[in-house]
């Protein structure tokens, strides 16, 4: 089938969306951005392909009467096992890289002790990751870097304590290795992994292997033909695409939000290091926009710094802020000073959750300023970008929007992080179908 792909190479995450000829979204994928842009977009695309395959399975399964009722359980399990397969493979790579890099660490004299320690760390890592992928377990993040990273920190802190090896040295081995692992393009044989995952699922859950295998194989046989790709986002100029395949992220976000909610007139996007306020008309065309520049104060990365400072996962910040009873007013939202500010406040005896709530409010206030600058909020209002996943930010935003602009519809889609990529995919579809029309192709 003909597919059109949009890739949004953001400053923190890279997203891909695949749509079919009718503009229907088939799948989306995300990964953390990294210095190898090519790999980042390949991985995001691969993730989107996986998600497309899952969509196709769903369609097949729905048509398989005896499995129809178990569709969602099956898919969840399949995805879980599939991810585990992917992770174990990456973990293996990381393990190898670490072992190699252990020889290059200059600060440690006893290399053998270091290698031994690494073995121990990786043993506990494999266990931990497997348990993270056990049925029904909530994960901090879906990125290998994050999951492996925090597990590695924990494990190595313990090992360091036991063996007297320097924690910094162990950390260093990891830092060296993860960047290598991340730069490698993803391995290609997805089909095999799907089948392996399927085996695992049937083993663990007792589904009839043969009966499930057929629709899965059918779905895998379907050809995903990549017709046209459009890139957008912060890193778009460095994407290996010709100019006409690149669109400004403002336009993509506007269009993407329009596709999700056709009534959208105002879009707010808070990403890793930029915040955009966009006004669109009833066809998704951008009428006005504003964004921050030169200063990343109050953007998504800010939360990242805070999370690091508190040794928490990004997704834990929102819930913690929700517990606050009293908001602390925070005036400086310099991302880099965030940690210092937090410590300052803690020293003054303020409560963690109150401070965190104050920080969220500060971010949203800044965003409100940017929206105001772009022309205010008109009905309907759509909030997109990574920070839209954060419930505390959403809560503050709702409050402030209502206070300042009255009763407007506020749309937040759980997949809002893909808004830009969706817009890009739609641009790809438009260009692609036009191109094939022009060359006499048959667009049906």
């Amino acid at each position, binding site marked *: 089938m003909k597919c059109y792909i949009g890739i949004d190479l953001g400053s923190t995450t890279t997203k891909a969306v695949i749509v079919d000829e009718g503009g229907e979204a088939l799948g989306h994928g995300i990964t953390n951005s990294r210095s190898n842009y090519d790999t980042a977009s390949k991985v995001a695309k691969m993730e989107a392909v996986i998600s497309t395959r899952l969509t196709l399975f769903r369609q097949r399964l729905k048509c398989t009467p005896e499995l129809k009722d178990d569709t969602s359980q099956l898919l969840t399990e399949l995805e879980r096992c599939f991810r585990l397969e992917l992770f174990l493979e990456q973990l293996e790579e990381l393990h190898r890289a670490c072992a190699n890099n252990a020889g290059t660490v200059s600060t440690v004299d006893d290399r053998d002790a270091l290698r031994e320690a690494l073995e121990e760390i990786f043993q506990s890592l494999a266990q931990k990751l497997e348990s993270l992928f056990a049925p029904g377990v909530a994960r901090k993040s879906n990125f290998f870097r994050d999951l492996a990273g925090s597990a590695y920190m924990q494990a190595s802190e313990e090992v360091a304590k036991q063996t007297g090896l320097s924690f910094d040295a162990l950390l260093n081995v990891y830092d060296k290795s993860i960047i290598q692992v991340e730069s490698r393009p993803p391995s290609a044989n997805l089909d095999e992994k799907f089948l392996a995952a399927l085996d695992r699922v049937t083993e663990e859950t007792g589904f009839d292997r043969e009966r499930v295998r057929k629709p899965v194989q059918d779905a895998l046989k379907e050809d995903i033909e990549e017709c046209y790709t459009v890139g957008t986002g912060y890193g778009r100029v460095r994407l290996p695409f010709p100019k006409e395949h690149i669109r400004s992220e403002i336009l993509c976000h506007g269009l993407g939000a329009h596709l999700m909610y056709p009534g959208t007139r105002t879009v707010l996007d808070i990403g890793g290091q930029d915040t955009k306020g966009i006004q669109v008309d009833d066809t998704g065309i951008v009428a006005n926009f504003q964004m921050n520049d030169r200063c990343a104060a109050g953007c998504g990365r800010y939360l990242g710094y805070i999370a690091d400072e508190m040794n928490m996962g990004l997704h834990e910040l929102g819930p913690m802020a929700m517990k606050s009873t009293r908001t602390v*007013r925070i005036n400086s939202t310099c991302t880099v*000073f965030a940690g210092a500010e937090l410590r300052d406040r803690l020293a003054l005896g303020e409560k963690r959750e109150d401070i965190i709530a104050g920080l969220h409010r500060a971010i949203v206030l800044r965003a409100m*300023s940017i929206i105001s600058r772009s022309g205010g909020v008109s009905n309907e209002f759509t909030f997109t970008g990574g920070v839209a996943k954060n419930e505390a930010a959403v809560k503050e935003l709702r409050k402030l929007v209502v206070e300042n602009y009255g009763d407007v519809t506020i749309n937040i889609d759980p997949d809002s992080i893909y808004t830009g990529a969706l817009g890009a995919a739609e641009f790809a579809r438009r260009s692609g179908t036009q191109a094939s029309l022009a060359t006499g192709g048959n667009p049906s």
Partner: protein
Amino acid sequence: MAVKDIIERCTELYRDLEFNAAKRWKAAGSDRKVMGYMPVYVPEEIIHAAGMMPLGIVGGGDQMEVIHGDAYYQSYICRIPRSTIELGVTGKLDFLDGILFPSICDVIRNLSGMWKMMRPDMYVQYFDVPQNFADGIGGEYYVKELEHLRDEFSALAGRPVGDDAINRSIALYNERRRLVREIYDFRSEAPWKAPTAEVHLLMRAGLVIPVEEHIRMMQGYLAAAREEDRPVRDCCRVVINGSFCEQPPLNLIKTIEMAGCYVVDDDYMLGNRWLLEDLATDGNPLEVLADAFLHHSADTAAKYCPRKEDVGRFLLQSVKDTKAEGVIFSAPSFCDPALLERPMLADRMSEHGIPHISFKYAENSGQMQPIREQAGTFADTLKLWS
């Protein structure tokens, strides 16, 4: 009243972004009008004589969350206009009958035009002052501008504002100026008895309450503060310069004192003591006001200094009068007048062997640590080595 009570009342006024005191005053009479003005100086006497209450607006301070203000101002413009716009956009200044934007810098100047566009229904006046200090040139121009103002206010008030009325107001404001001077002198003599945060609050209160009430308030404070027994701390004496427009957050003022510096003179809320001496109450009042403005008024960076050798004279005098050990140049970020003037003043201080330091702030500065460190090091140095 005890110092504590007076200061509490001032703090309440300082925090009240709804300007309830002025609203109450206005509500007490059907013909009462409130005329807002931006820093630094406007001839309040004429407003007062027209039966109106002058209301000084110095932004939103660190208590206000600015949401719309940033839609009007780029990041490299000082804070006060954006929080003032915020006050306007959120309707907090709707009760004003008019607003004056005195000539101080291009930001406030342009704000006058923004206000005209934002509130076409309101009386909005840009008020230019002479930078030529010859009676026959700048003086003549200024008197005509004052006449214009008086005529406009007469029209607003619905009755002519006569010379007698203005003279009576001048007398009242003379009283206020005298008290303000007294408080500053008192603090300079016994800075431990009148912490700058208190003096600042007291001066700030004067912007938002009727002048008669401010006079009573200052009398009360002076009487009470003299009685108060407060410990003397090991601090050095400094003069603050550069803060005549946007005001620092109260925490910053406290930080400076806590870091070991007694402030013995400053240019916070300079409008209250813009005219330096008592004014005649029996002359042609507009000429009297003009004369005081041209020849007996405070110095700020917003004024032109016709003679090179006079630059910094005012500040030097203040250092001498208050026996200060050093000068802290503390200006709002992006404040053109203060920051352009600073190198000249700093040179003057160095010429006279007066130690000085400088830093910037914003009305909503949250991080006090760098300020504390700089003021503290300054104090350490003055203390350890004097």
